[in-house]
């Protein structure tokens, strides 16, 4: 055994000597007797964070605070904070130089690592963030609210099983959490992590729960874009972008005032929730339509239509009666002859049976729906126009024909662009444009495609039918909403 005790060729200091110079006198003796330090996880601001094991081999986290730099009560905040999503406080030790808090070790990885290692979907991100909202809600709604003030991915631990299914979300690091005392003017020191800290944490004013809401917004942005800073070049799913913007408003007054509101906004921005909303919208439409027809108003004939089943009409042939009704409805309503009929259309084709073109569609958007010509006419380049500056994310020549999916996309977007907010020009795994797929799902749920069965090269009449159906759906929804407000 002695053979391994060879002196190094590089230096003459032996290991024994090295270990003799090892100084751990700063730590409370009882703490060192009970826990063995295995890793130093972090070292900053007079705080060392260690991984430690006890005699039985159980793992813990020990935070050691230098008393000359930290003025805190033993056990500090964490001792009084027990609950789901927070680490369990075990015990604390102290001597004249140091205070040591031992807490449970949370098995898992920090959210920044988790996000880097897993391809997080919007649903995953929303799920994690809503769980984080619940934890923050528990902290903010205590009789004496606790503001964490250092919300960032590094302080959120994700525990998952082998399949990657998220089991638990835990918020750690309560170093700078402080109980909010109304009346104190400003926080005297800067706390927090620069990229995530709210402006008032730099000393503009007293921080309250809205500082956490700010950091939460930055965290959400980081998860969605990979950056803590706003980047206009990266398109964020619009409903979530709105949540981020409101969370990270400069003035606390412009933010959500309560984390529960953030959670609600997130659940509504969640695509799953949006689907449920679309269903609700359909229900509202049906109800509104029934009310309106009972009241005896003369309304568009579509109201009384019942959907054809697949056997009743050939799959790819549209319902002629509905088409001709839609054509006269649209022409009358907008006092135009763009939708065919007896006169020649602007693009030179004749009647509602002629095949519609992109050129005609653009004219309809500008003349009928009053959209800005620059917005509709994207420059004709080979690259996609994925920007809010242009109505179409794709570029086509004016003489190209139109597929039903595209027409539905246009019909939905012209009324509510938010529904088809994800309009990436890249096709998804199924070979579909995401925006078009969302529009088609919405159209199927609400009946926008009723009677329009031809998949490609649709006619001017079918264009009118899809647009008319969409008007019916959105008008009914608006009417139902107005009634709801009145009641």
């Amino acid at each position: 055994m002695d053979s391994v005790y060879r002196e190094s060729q590089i230096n003459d200091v032996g290991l024994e000597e090295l270990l003799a110079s090892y100084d751990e006198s700063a730590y409370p003796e009882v703490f060192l007797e009970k826990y063995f330090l295995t890793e130093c996880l972090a070292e900053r601001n007079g705080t060392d964070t260690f991984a430690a094991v006890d005699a039985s081999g159980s793992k813990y986290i020990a935070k050691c605070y230098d008393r000359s730099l930290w003025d805190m009560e033993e056990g500090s905040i964490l001792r009084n904070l027990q609950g789901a999503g927070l680490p369990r406080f075990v015990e604390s030790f102290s001597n004249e130089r140091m205070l040591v808090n031992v807490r449970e070790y949370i098995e898992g990885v920090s959210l920044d690592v988790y996000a880097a290692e897993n391809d997080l979907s919007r649903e995953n991100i929303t799920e994690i963030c809503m769980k984080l909202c619940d934890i923050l809600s528990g902290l903010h709604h205590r009789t004496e609210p606790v503001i964490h003030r250092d919300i960032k991915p590094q302080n959120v631990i994700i525990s998952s099983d082998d399949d990657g299914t998220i089991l638990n979300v835990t918020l750690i690091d309560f170093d700078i959490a402080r109980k909010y005392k109304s009346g104190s003017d400003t926080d005297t020191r800067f706390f927090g992590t620069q990229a995530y800290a709210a402006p008032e944490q730099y000393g503009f004013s007293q921080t309250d729960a809205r500082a956490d809401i700010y950091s939460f917004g930055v965290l959400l942005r980081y998860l969605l874009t990979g950056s803590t800073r706003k980047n206009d070049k990266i398109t964020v799913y619009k409903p979530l972008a709105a949540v981020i913007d409101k969370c990270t408003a400069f003035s606390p007054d412009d933010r959500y005032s309560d984390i529960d509101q953030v959670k609600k906004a997130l659940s509504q921005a969640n695509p799953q929730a949006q689907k449920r909303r679309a269903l609700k919208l359909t229900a509202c439409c049906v109800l509104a339509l029934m009310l309106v027809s009972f009241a005896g108003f003369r309304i568009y004939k579509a109201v009384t239509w019942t959907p054809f089943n697949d056997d009743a009409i050939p799959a790819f042939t549209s319902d002629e009666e509905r088409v001709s009704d839609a054509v006269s409805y649209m022409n009358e309503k907008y006092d135009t002859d763009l939708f065919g009929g007896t006169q020649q259309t602007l693009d030179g084709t004749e009647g509602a049976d002629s095949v519609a073109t992109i050129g005609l569609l653009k004219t309809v958007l500008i003349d009928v729906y009053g959209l800005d010509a620059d917005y509709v006419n994207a420059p004709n380049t080979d690259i996609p126009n994925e920007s809010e500056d242009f109505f179409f994310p794709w570029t086509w020549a004016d003489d190209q024909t139109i597929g039903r999916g595209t027409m539905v996309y246009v019909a939905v977007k012209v009324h509510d662009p938010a529904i088809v907010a994800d309009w990436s020009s890249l096709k998804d795994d199924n070979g579909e444009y995401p925006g078009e797929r969302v529009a088609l799902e919405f159209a199927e749920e609400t009946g926008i495609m009723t009677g329009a069965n031809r998949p490609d090269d649709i006619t001017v009449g079918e264009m009118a039918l899809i647009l008319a159906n969409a008007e019916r759906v959105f008008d009914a929804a608006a009417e139902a909403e107005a009634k709801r407000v009145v009641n």
Partner: protein
Amino acid sequence: MTDKSRAITTEELWARLFAAKNAGNFMAEYSENYELPSFSDYITDLCKSRGEKPEQVIRRANIESSYGHRLFAGGRNPSRDTVIQFAYGFELDVNETQQLLVIARHAGLHPKIKRDSVIAYCLHNKFTLMETQQFLYDNSLPLIGGGRLG
């Protein structure tokens, strides 16, 4: 041995062992903005650049063969002790070991941790894994990989 024959003092040795202590912090910040290579890619490249075969590294690291090959192939990140075993497998110095730990997203060797100090000392002096285990054992410190000696 007389004092005159001393090349350096203990203070200097501490400084030398953990000269790259802050490199870990730098890498951690770096990784917030740029993607770190995966552990498997990194050790595969390391093998190539050193003209070594994974088998040789795995053997020197005293890692069970099929597990070692799985780590080269990719998948989950290894434990911190396994990464340290790889450092012995590649015969890395302290600085390179710190980098390898960062790549595997583990805490670097730290002077405040007695066991880390012993490991750093042994890596610095090019001791083998078995020699290091003996040092740890003699100083009542947990062995690398949690195994028993002998």
